[in-house]
């Protein structure tokens, strides 16, 4: 089973078209294995990105270098999945 310990989901808010283009370029980098939950649409609209623990630093450095605003939407994906599983088990019982 694939586990997601340390993976985070970042909510990124590009402020202009240039930042949207930068994000689209970032999302194309296959080595980072990014999982786009919500694609960038227009300036001011958030885009959500699941980033594996191993790529977190690189992505955050990229965002900060280009002054692209972001926040951490999900701190640790696996913790939420564990809670979800626990809740399903409880309901089943």
């Amino acid at each position, binding site marked *: 089973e694939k586990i997601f310990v340390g993976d985070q989901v970042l909510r990124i808010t590009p402020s202009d078209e240039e930042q949207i283009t930068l994000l689209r370029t970032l999302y194309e980098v296959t080595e980072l294995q990014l999982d786009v*939950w919500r694609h960038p649409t227009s300036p001011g609209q958030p885009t959500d990105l699941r980033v594996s623990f191993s790529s977190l630093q690189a992505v955050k450095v990229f965002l900060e270098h280009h002054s692209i605003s972001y926040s951490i939407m999900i701190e640790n994906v696996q913790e939420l999945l564990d*809670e979800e599983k626990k809740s399903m088990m409880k*309901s089943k019982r």
Partner: protein
Amino acid sequence: IGRSTDSFDFASYHTIDEIYDWMDTLVDGHPNLVSKFQIGQSYENRPLYVLKFSTGGSNRPAIWLDTGIHSREWITQATGLWTANKIAEEYGKDPSITAILDSMDIFFEIITNPDGFAYTHSSNRMWRKTRSINAGSSCVGVDPNRNWDAGFGGFGSSSNPCSETYHGPYPHSEREVKSIVDFIRSHGNVKSVISIHSYSQMLLFPYGYTTAPAPDYQELNELAKKAVTDLAALYGTKYTYGSIADTIYLADGTTVDWAYENGIKYSFTFELRDTGRYGFLLPSSQIIPTATETWPALLDIMVHVLEHPY
């Protein structure tokens, strides 16, 4: 032991087996209204079940609903269960759903991508695509919402099998898609297609593959506006609405574009609730609020379809 929908916990997420069992329970509980039939098999040979809500007649005009085409969007399958139960429970009580079912049939596919859904339970909760093997690639699956024959293979879809938006080798290559296409075509009297996704709080209509406005843009836009207004009435959840291309981005090969291009005027796709904190991992405590707020919007569309025959 007699089965009952009363003991089913709609406020929890369920496995595919539990959901398929529940479908039988629903049919048992409403034998004169609900039936279950199979429109095909998935890539891994799971049955593709559709619930039919009908009060009789022959080949009546129909509304198609589907949830879970992207398997990780668990809130959609859960909303589908609640909604299917609501349709059955409210017939004969709620005047709108009663009027609809007195003249039309409703077809509801709750687990549109069963292989992907089973995979989200067993191996990878984040799985979105089908589970078909791609020749020449180690990456599995096709995005079933890029696999339809409507501007297939262009913007917003990928030719890379490793991408989450891989459009597949050719239109309707996925059995899960082809089965719906075949069913809707052979039925010949489907008047509305409503495909339910999550998350980002949107109600969208054609086109996705071009920025050109659909011929029925004005009517679809007005209807979407009414639906999102009524949706917001319950908890204040704000939806945006518009064509897919204008509201999100150009996306080729989508369900609703195919439906619209095949003469189904009332083609919509929902993106259900986002609290801004959980994305695809919406806690089960939000299933009922999400389903409840979506219901009036669905009814708006279905009533409009009933009142505007074409």
